């Protein structure tokens, strides 16, 4: 079959990102031709400022090399400006005479710098700041000339001014407003910024408009700009004038072809123009009346557009909330959303402000209806992406409002020296303790390989790809390296690359359609891959069995090895065996059996675990079933995304301080919830008094005995991030402990995402939601507890089952030849 023809007009970031997304999902659908009017392959436009500031070279910022185009069979025409589209015959024509036919046309013509319509604007030495040519012009001019004037004190203007200063020029910025970056900053932050930039040697003329540009009338520099005259008649020397007063979508080509434009090429939510064969993405479009000049929204558009070009027909672009960051080394500035001065009496917008003038720090959050709607950070932007994430997610903040201003101090995880501010780290400092990745390596990968997302960085550098504790840091590094190019992932992201559905949508579909096995679920939800991947299959398997207990098929091949063989795989391929000791209580008889087994099978190490039981380490797989048989003890599920231990203290039976029999309570819980699978591992603890010797404060459910009953705490975690459990409620009886903690557990089992610990789930839904479900809704609580008991009914002890039905479990036998 002949391939369809896709022609892309515009070889910039938006157009090529769309092509890349398209190649990912439908690599063979189109024969692709790309036209670009610049002489270069696709490069990272947002990195032009670092090039001007001598921090990078042109080669560093090329995103797709010519070899890349060749490898993907893409015909690339550079220095070829398309000046005509014949929509009737579906052909585009370039100025140089080249033409190409299309079945689908993608317009990504970007934008143009807006040039002020003032006398002298056409003189030599008057430029915008948009592409490699402009950047080279500035670098070359700086070699022979002295004075530069930048018109416009916005992001681009300030980056240009900073770069020109570094190139050795005397730079004056003319700005028509009262303070710099008035669209990103409020007045206070704008003043602080100005002071810092003045310290770097820049000059500013605020509240001034430019009246005209005056040129040399004769001599060597005839027709070159000489000076700038302002509206108050002040004249400033200028051998170079950079106009950075804004950009305008470049839609002339589309308009000339009769495609409907209104201050941009008008597109719908699928990025389609009024001509159904023609799509448009990037700065040239007007989507719902808005044109974007930052790279993050372009990438969101690209993804949606590629999906429709690939004929998948799903995905809608619904507009973007953007954030900006000034890429001037040494100045930290972040802003997002709506941060105009708030007036709580009149418009319901409140603001929280922290201002340390001496320390050079200014932070402002604008809040409306209990959510963050805007933020400005100056001097300390470490929490920028955290605030932005909450802003995008519309997260309710009342629970954390008191500490909001002090940042996400929870980033201080283990594994990187307690460091939680990426900006303060040197390039040699280790970010990812698991994979040994330094900050410099990450920054270099982001710049050299053109990475834009956390997933890209994880894939290319491995940072953050193991335990995940440093993802916050990696995100900060990504955000500060990319500036406005960074878009935090929506927290409701797809399960994996096999589907566009997120975890909640998958769960809902399984419930609604009553899928009972993985093949049906994948087929029903139109999975892209024939049998998923190592990420989605375990998740699907868990969702199926937790949604339809006793009915859904539990597929062993979709479980990780540990759960498949009911033992924990070790680095050398051996396994560990941890028998259950309910409540951490054992007997001489059990200990003797364990000792005998350890002797008989020459177990290399016998260790007491943190969960109050005994671990036999270094067991060969083929010995597992024999060991279980000799032990004749139940599995401790030490390998499971499921109930692990119930840690207990001695309690009132022996302890002179104990107020409750914590050991008996622990044993009762462990027996009641034995064999329970959950989204992630699940730990209980029961302490007999508030001295809390069982460490109930860092367990998924921690129970503490007090004189008049039991206190229940939830969402604790002693792992990567030490999280203290939060108080849920106090109950009087042992039965209530089971009912309340069981209901909590079951709601977590039913609603959390696979691999979410309780703390992550509570962080997302809020403790108030949990309280409402478990405390206020008494009937709901009882029903949830019943559902848990139903799910656990008749559960089979897995080790005994494998001893009994040995012949059916060939997995444990090695074939020898």
């Amino acid at each position: 079959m002949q391939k369809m023809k896709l022609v892309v007009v515009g070889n910039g970031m938006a157009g090529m990102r769309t092509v890349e997304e398209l190649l990912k999902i439908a690599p063979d659908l189109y024969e692709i031709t790309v036209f670009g009017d610049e002489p270069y392959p696709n490069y990272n436009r947002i990195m032009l400022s670092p090039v001007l500031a001598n921090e990078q070279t042109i080669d560093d910022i090329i995103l797709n090399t010519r070899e890349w185009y060749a490898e993907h069979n893409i015909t690339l025409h550079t220095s070829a400006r398309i000046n005509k589209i014949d929509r009737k015959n579906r052909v585009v024509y370039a100025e140089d005479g080249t033409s190409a036919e299309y079945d689908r046309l993608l317009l990504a013509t970007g934008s143009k710098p807006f040039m002020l319509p003032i006398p002298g604007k056409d003189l030599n030495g008057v430029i915008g700041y948009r592409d490699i040519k402009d950047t080279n012009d500035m670098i070359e001019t700086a070699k022979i000339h002295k004075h530069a004037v930048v018109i416009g004190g916005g992001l681009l203007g300030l980056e240009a001014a900073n770069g020109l200063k570094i190139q050795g020029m005397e730079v004056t910025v003319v700005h028509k407003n009262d303070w710099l970056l008035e669209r990103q900053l409020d007045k206070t932050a704008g003043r602080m910024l100005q002071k810092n930039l003045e310290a770097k040697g820049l000059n500013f003329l605020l509240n001034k408009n430019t009246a005209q540009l005056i040129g040399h009338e004769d001599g060597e520099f005839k027709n070159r700009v000489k000076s700038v005259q302002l509206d108050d008649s002040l004249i400033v020397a200028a051998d170079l004038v950079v106009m950075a007063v804004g950009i305008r979508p470049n839609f002339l080509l589309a308009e000339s072809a009769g495609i409907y434009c209104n201050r941009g090429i008008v597109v719908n939510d699928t990025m389609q123009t009024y001509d159904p064969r023609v799509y448009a993405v990037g700065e040239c479009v007007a989507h719902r009346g808005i044109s974007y000049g930052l790279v993050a929204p372009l990438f969101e558009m690209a993804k949606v557009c590629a999906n429709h070009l690939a004929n998948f027909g799903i995905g809608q672009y619904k507009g973007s909330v953007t954030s900006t960051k000034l890429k001037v080394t040494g100045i930290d500035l972040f802003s997002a959303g709506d941060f105009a001065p708030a007036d709580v009496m009149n418009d319901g917008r409140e603001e929280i402000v922290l201002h340390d003038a001496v320390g050079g720090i200014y932070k402002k959050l604008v809040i409306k209806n209990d959510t963050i709607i805007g933020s400005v950070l100056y001097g300390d932007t470490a929490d920028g992406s955290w605030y932005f994430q909450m802003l995008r997610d519309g997260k309710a903040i009342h629970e954390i409002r008191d500490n909001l201003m002090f940042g996400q101090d929870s980033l201080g995880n283990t594994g990187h020296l307690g460091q939680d501010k990426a900006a303060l780290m040197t390039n040699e400092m280790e970010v990812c303790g698991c994979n040994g990745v330094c900050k410099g390596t990450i920054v270099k990968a982001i710049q050299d390989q053109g990475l834009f997302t956390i997933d890209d960085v994880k894939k290319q550098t491995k940072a953050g790809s193991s335990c995940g504790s440093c993802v916050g840091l990696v995100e900060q590094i990504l955000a500060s390296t990319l500036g406005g190019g960074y878009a935090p992932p929506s927290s409701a992201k797809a399960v994996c690359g096999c589907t566009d559905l997120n975890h909640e949508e998958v769960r809902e579909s399984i419930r609604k359609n009553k899928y009972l096995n993985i093949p049906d679920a994948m087929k029903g939800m139109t999975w892209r891959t024939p049998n998923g991947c190592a990420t989605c299959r375990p998740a699907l398997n868990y969702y199926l069995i937790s949604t339809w207990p006793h009915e859904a098929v539990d597929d062993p091949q979709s479980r990780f090895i540990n759960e498949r063989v009911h033992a924990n795989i070790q680095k050398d391929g051996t396994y560990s065996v941890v028998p259950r000791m309910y409540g951490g209580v054992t007997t001489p008889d059990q200990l003797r059996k364990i000792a005998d087994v350890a002797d008989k099978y020459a177990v290399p190490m016998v260790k007491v675990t943190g969960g109050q039981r005994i671990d036999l380490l270094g067991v060969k797989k083929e010995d597992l079933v024999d060991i279980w048989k000799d032990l004749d003890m139940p599995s401790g599920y030490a390998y499971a995304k499921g109930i692990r231990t119930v840690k207990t203290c001695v309690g009132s039976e022996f302890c002179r301080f104990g107020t409750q029999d914590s050991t008996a309570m622990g044993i009762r819980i462990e027996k009641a919830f034995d064999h329970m699978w959950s989204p992630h591992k699940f730990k209980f603890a029961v302490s007999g008094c508030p001295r809390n010797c069982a460490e109930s404060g860092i367990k998924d459910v921690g129970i503490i005995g007090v004189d008049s009953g039991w206190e229940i705490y939830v969402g604790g975690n002693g792992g990567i991030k030490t999280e203290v459990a939060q108080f849920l409620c106090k109950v009087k009886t042992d039965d209530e402990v089971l009912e309340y903690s069981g209901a909590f557990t079951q709601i977590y089992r039913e609603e959390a995402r696979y691999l979410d610990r309780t703390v992550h789930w509570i962080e997302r839904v809020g403790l108030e939601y949990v309280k409402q479900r478990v405390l206020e809704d008494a009937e709901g609580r009882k029903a949830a507890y019943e559902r848990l008991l139903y799910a656990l009914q008749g559960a089979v002890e897995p080790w005994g089952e494998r001893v009994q039905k040995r012949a059916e479990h060939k997995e444990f036998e090695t074939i020898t030849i």
Partner: protein
Amino acid sequence: MSSWVKVAPFEDIPRLGARVVRRTKPDGGFDEIGIFRTEDDRIFAINNQCPHKKGPLSQGIVYGDKIACPLHGWKISLVDGKAEEPDEGEVACFKVKVVEGIVYLDV
């Protein structure tokens, strides 16, 4: 030269799963080969050691014609033994065939 050795009945290799074959070498030592079966009943044999940290590949999760290592999730192609980018490395592949329901391995 091929030397085909009988391994096991095909049905003993679980679909989307694997079995381990321990091969005694001439010097008396041994090594391990993983025999993998895909969902559409294709069969592959590759060295059982992940190029990363020697994880036993046969214990991983089979999907498509790939295996995800159980230790750190490297993805190895069953077809050519190569690690999926950006990881680098490969493992040896062996010829394997099924004749009348019996799996044979070319050692």
